[in-house]
């Protein structure tokens, strides 16, 4: 299962402990994590379920490209980091 780690900066708003979930894309993994932590979803994704404008996601150190559909591939051994972008102040 892929491992998901959230930025520490979100933790004071909503608890987002590191989690593990199965999936072959970023979307599949994250939706499984958010199923257990629904309040966290809107802190990372916007109303259209796209990645928020000033958030970034890395899969094994590579920034994802598909910010709308989150279709970037994930391996069973992957680590997904959900971070703030430096843009956005």
């Amino acid at each position, binding site marked *: 299962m892929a491992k998901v780690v959230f930025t520490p900066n979100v933790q004071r708003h909503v608890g987002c402990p590191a989690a593990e979930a199965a999936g072959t894309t970023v979307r599949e993994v994250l939706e499984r994590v958010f199923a257990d932590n629904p309040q966290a979803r809107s802190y990372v994704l916007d*109303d259209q379920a796209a990645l928020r404008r000033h958030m970034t996601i890395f899969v094994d150190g590579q920034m994802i490209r598909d910010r709308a559909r989150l279709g970037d591939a994930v391996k069973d051994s992957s680590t997904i980091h959900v971070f703030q972008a430096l843009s956005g102040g």
Partner: protein
Amino acid sequence: MSDRLLVSTRKGLFTVMRNGGDWDITGVDFLGDNVTLTLTDPRDGKSYAALDHGHFGVKLHRSTANGWEEIPSPAYPPKPEGYEEKDMWGREINWTTTKIWALTAGGPDQPGTIWCGTLPGGLFRSSDHGQSWEMMRTLWDHPLRKKWAGGGADWPGIHSICVDPRNAKQVSIGVSTGGIWHTADGGASWALRGEGMRAEYMPPEQAHDPISQDVHCLAQCRAAPQRMWVQHHNGIFVSSDEGKTFTEIKGVEPSVFGFPVVVHPKEPDTAWFVPEIKDEKRIPREGKLAVTRTRDGGKSFEVLSKGLPQAHAYDVVYRHALALDEPGDRLALGSTTGGLWVSEDQGDSWACVTHTLPPIYAVRFA
């Protein structure tokens, strides 16, 4: 008389209470976070606070007996697959709540009903104290909505919501930019209003088009709801027919530019404004912060400055940062440079509460 103020700032929500004859900061919530607006519902005392976390989006909180709880923020519906909608600069309009710009309680016969206006132009209604939200598709899908445009913000937005005190199904909203819209049937249908307003920033043939009007703030008199006041991007306008038609008030000194307007709840001819040098500068004239007041429907205005800084004051007062209490006697004023003033005599004199708050976005008696 209201003895309590909620002050929304870039770095937290401050509670200010009257203590003896003075007003003091007595508490702060969400310290460090961007609080953009509050509503305290006069029907049940519940307070709502809108936060903009930037990276993490716009959130809404509701007061409880033990503090605040996060409740769902209004959310836009899924954009149809392949549907493209671009703004005047050709940028794709993202169907997502970018800012909560208006929060208004529904009528006395609608407990729990809250209206919410947002950027980029969605209007929402909750009938369960904000626990769930319904988007007004009748307005969002209106063909003329696509003619709304960004004003002070990049995206169009709804900043004023006036629920008619005689009939809560009659609601008027102000849009920057997009004029004034009215429903007479609780949101089932919407019509554009506001004949008579004038837009200096448009070509002559479009200057009087109601859809082109940059309404900065819309206020309705509670005892005489046919009276509406508008602080507009290039002027002050008054209506005596519920916003159907407006008359321009010209020659108001020191300026007709500003953001907020409040109207007395029982005296429709009495209204207050905060004048600034017009749009290209947006600062008080000669560095003197002032409030203007009319008591005769706009025939004349008084400049009220006693107790307000009269040298090197560059305070800008945003549209939600001038408040009038429920009886219409006390006013409060908050500025972008962190100044907060209270008047207990309808603006004749002002007392400074503090001038060291973070930038103030909204002030509300609560």
